[in-house]
């Protein structure tokens, strides 16, 4: 930042005095006053501000709750009950905090969908997007640990199930879980560290949000047309045009939020969350909070172990793929070599883990048939990897989808595929809450398959082959804007 201008900028001498020494007012005007917003930004561009508001509401309500909360296995549940019954306005604080987490996720999910639809992850916003995914991951960790704090049946068993996922990693798994728990089961050390981290992480999120907004103010906002603003004609100053628009959207959002807090505070919560934790009795049906359900469903979709037989079949398939690639890339030697290298790496990796699995398995009665059944990647580990992978795919999305057209408006096929992705995601959200039997399992598997196919097959394919519609030269020439007489 350069030195403040010599001339007096502010009428108020106190403001002027401060600004010459710490140009905070100059910064506010630059970033939130005259900051140029694409004039066609619609209400979907208001959800980032809503998410930030929810973060602040969570921090404020959380700090006050923490003053009445006791992080000890013998007292935590009762201290939360005391908050509900005896602490002045405690019920309000807790309901705000409980439902606030849900509305935080609602805002962020819509925010992410907006990005997917209008291609906001593409050049030059890759870092902005990745920082956003980091925020999403931190939010999930924070909400997960917060849900543990009331030490209810759902708290304790939710923590048990989710932390046990880490035990699925080969070799280090058991040690890792013992370390996470600070003991041999989910117990007081676990609750204590979860409280410490639940207190800390929201402030880390706040810091990462700052980086997110910083990156945003370098590239500027994307817009429904997906073309960058070319001149002043394409933009409007943030204040008053978008402060008022975002402000209105925020009021509507908060009205729905407070309506839920006052009239349906328990609508989004399982009743087993209001029973104290009993480490000897698992409730019959453990369900995570709704915002985790799609990922939980992906986890549950993997039910078949990857055994030596399957590995051999896959190796056979890969061997057949070599001549296929040879024919397919006949014209292009460079691409053919690349394909060969990729296939070779896959094959090598597969052979390696198969040998490793066989070498580390002790069979009571070794035989060829027994070796064929040796498990290389157990179903549960596949589920864990897929669950984390489903989010990590978002990190590399800017490089998966390299179509030069940003907005789905001009990508007719992408638009439809995205709708199917949304439907799959909602399906997963539904099946995630169902018992793992019957048709929900299959529906979940189909949706999981589509989720991965969308990112790994469809997007790279569309990026090369899709016939896109003509993109307007500039925002002002966008027929959508012109018709409104802007």
């Amino acid at each position, binding site marked *: 930042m350069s030195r403040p201008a010599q001339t007096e900028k502010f009428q108020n001498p106190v403001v002027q005095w401060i600004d010459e020494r710490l140009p905070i007012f100059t910064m506010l005007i630059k970033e939130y006053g005259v900051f140029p917003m694409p004039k066609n930004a619609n209400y979907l561009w208001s959800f980032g501000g809503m998410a930030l508001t929810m973060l602040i509401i969570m921090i404020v309500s959380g700090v006050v709750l923490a003053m009445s909360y006791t992080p000890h296995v013998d007292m935590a549940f009762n201290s939360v009950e005391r908050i509900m019954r005896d602490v002045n306005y405690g019920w309000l604080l807790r309901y705000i905090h409980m439902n606030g987490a849900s509305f935080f996720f609602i805002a962020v999910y819509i925010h992410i969908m907006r990005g997917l639809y209008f291609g906001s992850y593409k050049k030059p916003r890759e870092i902005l997007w990745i920082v956003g995914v980091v925020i999403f991951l931190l939010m999930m960790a924070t909400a997960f640990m917060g849900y543990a704090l009331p030490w209810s049946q759902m708290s304790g*068993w939710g923590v*048990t*199930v*989710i*932390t*046990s*996922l880490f*035990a699925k990693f080969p070799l280090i798994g058991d040690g890792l879980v*013992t*370390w*996470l*728990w*600070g*003991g*041999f*089961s*989910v*117990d007081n*050390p676990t609750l204590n*560290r979860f409280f410490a981290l639940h207190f800390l992480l929201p402030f880390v999120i706040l810091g990462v949000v700052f980086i997110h907004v910083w990156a945003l103010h370098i590239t500027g906002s994307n817009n429904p047309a997906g073309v960058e603003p070319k001149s002043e004609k394409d933009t409007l100053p943030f204040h008053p045009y978008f402060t008022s628009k975002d402000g209105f959207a925020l009021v509507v959002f908060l009205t729905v939020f407070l309506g839920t807090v006052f009239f349906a505070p328990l609508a989004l919560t399982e009743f087993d969350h209001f029973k104290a934790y009993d*480490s*000897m*009795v*698992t*409730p*019959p*049906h*453990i369900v995570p909070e709704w915002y985790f359900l799609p990922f939980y469903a992906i986890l*549950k979709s993997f*039910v078949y*172990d990857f055994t030596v037989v399957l590995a051999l079949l896959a190796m056979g398939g890969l061997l057949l793929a070599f001549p296929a690639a040879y024919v397919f890339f006949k014209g292009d030697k460079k691409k053919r070599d690349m394909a060969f290298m990729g296939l070779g790496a896959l094959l090598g990796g597969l052979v390696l883990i198969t040998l490793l699995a066989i070498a580390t398995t002790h*069979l*009571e*009665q070794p035989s060829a048939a*027994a070796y064929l059944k040796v*498990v290389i990647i*157990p*179903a*549960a580990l596949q589920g864990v990897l897929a669950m984390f992978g489903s989010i990590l795919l978002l990190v590399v999305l800017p490089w998966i989808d390299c179509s030069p057209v940003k907005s789905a408006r001009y990508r007719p096929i992408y638009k439809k595929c995205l709708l199917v992705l949304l439907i799959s995601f909602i399906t997963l959200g539904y099946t995630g809450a169902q*018992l*793992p*039997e019957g048709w929900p399992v299959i529906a979940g598997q189909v949706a999981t398959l589509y989720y991965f196919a969308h990112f790994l097959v469809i997007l790279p394919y569309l990026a090369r082959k899709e016939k896109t519609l003509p993109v307007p030269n500039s925002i002002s020439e966008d027929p959508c804007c012109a018709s409104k007489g802007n």
Partner: protein
Amino acid sequence: MDSTKKQHAAGADGETRRDFLYLTAGAMGAVAAGTAVWPLVDSMSPAADTLALASTEVDVTSIQAGQTITVVWRGKPVFVHRRSAEEIAEVRAEAWQELRDPQSDQSRVKSGHDEWLVLVGVCTHLGCIPMGSKTADVKGDYNGWFCPCHGSHYDKSGRIRKGPAPKNLAVPPYEFVSDTLIRIG
């Protein structure tokens, strides 16, 4: 000027003695950072009092054949099940080589104490407690234990038969102090 030039005289590949200093300083810095971080990381491992959790002793005199009791060991439930002769004969008649986690029933109990089955009551899938220890419980398709969380069925030897769990219910380290007293841990 000349002398400094000589001091920094580049080797054949343009490396200088300063590069070496940077490398060693960097390496020392990394070691120091690692040393400083380790106590923080290790403080999260089980503390001495947690590790010292005594072993659990169970008096099994009052358990009837067909009954299961649940005791707590290291914060986890342990099922102690007394089996009838028919029950033992039944699980031993099955071909265990074909199971997901192939183990014979014999290898899961102490020989000479074949009627006693001692299991860590934690589902090997994601750590829920399987049902089946109480008379009224759902026992699953194999009449042993059933985990409600994601539907794992265990047989009367605690072996996984159906559902997502990869392994049989674990057998904790235990010994018979006398014919009626078991020490777990």
